[in-house]
């Protein structure tokens, strides 16, 4: 059996080791090495956490991640409930529309928001036409634009997580609550929400880590004026040719994402499905 397992697993392990594990380890090492002398150094990290610009960007990234997660929870909860209660055939159809943004070319998906928020876009033209503003407002390259774009991207993940948790709630439980005198909202908050908490936690983790590491949406809707960690990373490696600075941002990003996953797992010791 050991030989069979080795034959099955080793080629893939070798592949992932050479093309994934080694490069990541190398990047980790780069972040601690002085690019000129090759000596061990913490300057990259000290710079990152001391400079005001990178501090602002780090805090902004976390704050946007949190905001997007909260908006997603509020939008997704009632909608997921309807989806979970649909008959199977209709739900299949409905879900395939929900996951469309996840499956669409990210540039195409984000481009829609440029048409809506741009200088001559839907919102500016409408407000100008109504005489509410005199000249176009700058709506792209703002935090709001990033929030809109990332909410559209991650709402499907939140809904998928919630629907799969809610499917398993028997209808009787809710009926029992109702017949004991709970009204619709109470039944929802006291019965449905606690029983779908696993899905909520999984969905929130996916949305938060996805938001703080997303690239295409911040690059198009935030640009260089509203940097997030990912766009800072790209800027440092390409425009500033600050190789070490870029690897530091990369490590901060990985560690933050993994830490969130770890904290969530520790708070909820029950094993939850990993995406």
């Amino acid at each position: 059996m050991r030989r069979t397992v080795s034959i099955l697993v080793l080629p893939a392990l070798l592949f992932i080791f050479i093309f994934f594990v080694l490069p990541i380890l190398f990047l980790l090492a780069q972040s601690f090495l002085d690019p000129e002398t090759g000596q061990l150094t913490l300057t990259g990290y000290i710079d990152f956490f001391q400079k005001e610009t990178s501090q602002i960007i780090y805090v902004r990234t976390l704050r946007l991640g949190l905001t997007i997660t909260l908006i997603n929870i509020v939008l997704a909860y009632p909608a997921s409930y309807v989806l979970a209660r649909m008959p199977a055939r209709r739900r299949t159809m409905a879900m395939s529309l929900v996951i469309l943004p996840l499956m669409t070319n990210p540039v195409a998906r984000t481009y829609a928001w440029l048409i809506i928020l741009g200088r001559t876009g839907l919102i500016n033209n409408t407000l100008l036409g109504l005489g509410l503003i005199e000249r176009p407002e700058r709506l792209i390259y703002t935090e709001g634009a990033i929030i809109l774009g990332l909410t559209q991207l991650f709402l499907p993940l939140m809904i998928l997580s919630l629907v799969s948790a809610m499917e398993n709630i028997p209808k009787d439980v809710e009926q029992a609550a109702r017949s004991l005198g709970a009204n619709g909202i109470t039944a929802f908050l006291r019965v449905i929400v606690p029983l779908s908490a696993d899905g909520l936690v999984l969905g929130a983790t996916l949305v938060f880590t996805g938001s703080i590491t997303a690239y295409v949406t911040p690059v198009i809707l935030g640009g260089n004026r509203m940097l997030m960690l990912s766009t800072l990373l790209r800027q440092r490696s390409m425009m500033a040719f600050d190789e070490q600075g870029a690897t530091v941002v990369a490590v901060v990003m990985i560690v933050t994402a993994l830490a969130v996953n770890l904290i969530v797992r520790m708070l909820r010791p029950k094993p939850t499905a990993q995406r």
Partner: protein
Amino acid sequence: MKISRWYYVSLGIVYFFLLGPFLIIFAASFGAESTLSFPPRGFSLDWFANIFANDNFIRSFWTSLQLGLLSTFLSLLFGVPVAYALTHFDFKGAGLVETLFSLPILVPGLVIGLAMLNFFVLFGKFDMMMGLMAGHTAILFPYSVRVVSVALRNLDPAVEEAAVNLGANRLRTFLLIVLPNIRAGIAAAFILGFITSFNNVPVSVYLSAPGVNTLPIAMLSYMEYYFDPTIAALSTLLILFSLLLVQAAERVLGLSQFV
């Protein structure tokens, strides 16, 4: 039990938010003006013609298509045996193997791209297409391993036992009995992998060079210089393509249960 209509209102809002922007792209791609504006004025198909007149779009489309098909195939070629081992044998280190193959999803794509570029550069000149292929295959592993594992777990073990009892060896049983029975799972993994690769930006953005880039990267660089609705037209085509693929896959395979 009746669901209050407020829930339906909220579902409506969600759909409006998720799909409304796509309708706006469709409308914008037919506008006649050469700078993008909304609502569009006039009607024109020029922007669609423009896509096919642009060499970079055509070339990068073929690159993306090849890359998507080959890297998905490779990730399955390496990944299916892993899924088989994880579902059929209780071996030491199985947990570790499972974690290792789910890591490429936890590590941000941009970090993977940068790490690979820095690593490949160590060895001097390297072929960009090979770099892209390796990067995409690595990020597709988690999908292949997980989706195929789900399909293997859902397969009734009695089917395999029957084949073995009748004298077929493991490999024969796998090729003739197991594989045909999990073809829906393989197809779902293939579609999911292909879409993931075809749409990837963060890994590709670091592994592109003049002449070798993928379609989304070509779109991003076009957007830096031009503000006409060509990208809207191309987006319309890509959204329709995703819509068809997702509808078909959802109907036949129940794609959303694997996402």
